[in-house]
């Protein structure tokens, strides 16, 4: 896939044979290219590429920031994967979050996208309304929800109480805290995917549906046999992107619960933050970051492989 992107190049003309190792055209091109690239590349090297390499190296050391790094080989990784009980819980928490959040997000986004593409007036307004949380700092929205989740007086419990549901301690109950965070995140996040799906649905030519109508298809069949398959590239994109970003969840868990109760809402990035910037275990934290990368990488690769099975490209 990467090759396709790289090879879809602009200029078709290739330089023909040269008088020396560098002919004049190549030289000027190179200089021009360097001038164009320079601002971005300097920053890219300094703030992205080199830190990535340094991070990898640090992960093999023990470093408490004061004092010198001490080489530790694979110890950090070994501990993380095999002896750190808390990290195991953190991974499970994160997987639970990713699984439930992505599902919730995509289902709501798709439902609303289908609804908003039904020839209603003023749809643009509604589209904007549902997208609104995407422009606001997560920490601010998370605090509103924290208040709504309060036991006894919080809006959520008062509402559930109307149906006879007993008070739930939400963010203080290890069984419900993560669920609460998932719901909050769903509210904040589905608008984005909804917009993507709306664009996808609008891209489906009407002729498809007309042909189906003529053949006597009902609404349900239209959805499953036409809309969904034609939308599958968008769905694939949305799911992959949402999974990747949800693995990195931090703001909500930090601000709503700080990882409690009983570490039931501690997620990978929060754990990274605690180890790196509260306990200052730089090497260990770096290793956590790379484990995070490994998770994201593996999950994305699996998605790519599965793509052939369920994504329909024309």
């Amino acid at each position: 896939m990467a090759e396709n992107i790289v090879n879809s190049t602009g200029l078709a003309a290739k330089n023909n044979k040269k008088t020396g190792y560098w002919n004049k055209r190549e030289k000027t091109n190179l200089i021009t290219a360097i001038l164009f690239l320079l601002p971005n590349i300097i920053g890219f090297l300094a703030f992205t590429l080199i830190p990535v390499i340094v991070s990898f190296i640090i992960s093999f050391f023990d470093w408490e920031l004061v004092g010198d790094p001490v080489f530790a080989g694979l110890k950090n990784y070994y501990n993380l994967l095999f002896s750190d009980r808390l990290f195991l819980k953190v991974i499970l928490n994160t997987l639970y979050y990713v699984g439930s959040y992505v599902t919730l997000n995509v289902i709501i986004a798709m439902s609303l996208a289908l609804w908003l593409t039904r020839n209603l007036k003023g749809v643009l307004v509604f589209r904007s309304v549902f997208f609104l949380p995407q422009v606001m700092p997560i920490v601010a929205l998370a605090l509103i929800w924290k208040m709504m989740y309060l036991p006894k007086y919080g809006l959520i419990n008062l509402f559930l109480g109307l149906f006879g549901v007993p008070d739930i301690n939400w963010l203080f109950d290890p069984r419900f805290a993560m669920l609460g965070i998932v719901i909050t995140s769903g509210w904040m996040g589905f608008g984005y995917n909804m917009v993507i799906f709306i664009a996808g649905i609008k891209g489906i030519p009407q002729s498809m549906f007309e042909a189906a109508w003529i053949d006597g298809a009902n609404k349900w069949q239209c959805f499953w046999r036409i809309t969904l398959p034609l939308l599958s590239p968008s769905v694939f994109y949305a799911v992959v992107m949402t999974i990747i970003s949800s693995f990195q969840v931090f703001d909500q868990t930090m601000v709503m619960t700080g990882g409690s109760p009983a570490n039931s809402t501690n997620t990978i990035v929060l754990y990274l933050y605690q180890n790196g910037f509260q306990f200052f275990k730089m090497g260990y934290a770096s290793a956590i970051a790379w484990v995070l990368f490994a998770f994201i990488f593996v999950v994305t690769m699996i998605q790519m492989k599965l793509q052939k099975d369920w994504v329909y490209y024309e």
Partner: protein
Amino acid sequence: MEEKIKRENYVRSRFFKSLEYVLLVFTSCVFLIPIVWMFSTSLKPNNETMSIPPKLIGSTIEWGNYAKAWNFLPFGVFMKNSFIVAVTVTVLVVITSSLAAYAFARIQFKGRDTLFLMYLGTLMIPQQVTMIPLFIIMKKLGWVDTYQALILPVSFTAFGTFLMRQFFLTIPQELEEAGRIDGCSPFGLYARIIMPMSKPALSTLAIFSFIGQWRNFLWPLIVINKTDMKTLPLGIRMFQGQYGTEWNLLMCATAIVIIPSILIFIILQKYLVEGISLTGMGGR
């Protein structure tokens, strides 16, 4: 008789359409409840923030809560910082990414594809990987608690370059050929032909950069300690740390942080939503 049936059908479908509309309005209102509740709580006196049954408006409307919250912490400074950082990053991203993208899309040079692959590769690496070394670098440079620390590390990611390069590739070559025949320099081609044609992609990039920086929490949290260098997200976190149990004031602080977002949204919403639809992307 036929006419009557037609009219009945028409009335019925109109009825269902209106019902659907009402349902949609209802759903949006339910969706907005948290925001409404935030405003409602912010104006209540302290002892009325928690009540059964919940009230939309308290016994008095305490506009003074906002003044109190504003004075507890320097929100004006937080807003200024957020704004400076967001604008500067946006400008840097748009300029450097488009320049580099032009090189990748239109200039043949040795090693171009390898270099671009490297850019692409880093897209997969989450920001958390670079955070720790970047923090150490900031410390060594003495850049902790400075604007540079907030702006520079985030202005040069591969994402913008990738987005612009893909877009540039869709621009037909003929225009540049014409320009080149007229003796235009590469930079001239970039500035006078390519860039003006790239407004949709550029505005998408600009808007997403701005909003991304406006919402950014983790990196500023790591690199800023001094109160007067904090951005809005850090400010609200600080407020929570100090006055977290005074829900009405906390909601004022939240409103203070959210209102600029709403304003920005109203101004930009057309471009925002179109931008995602157009490019199918936007840094998440």
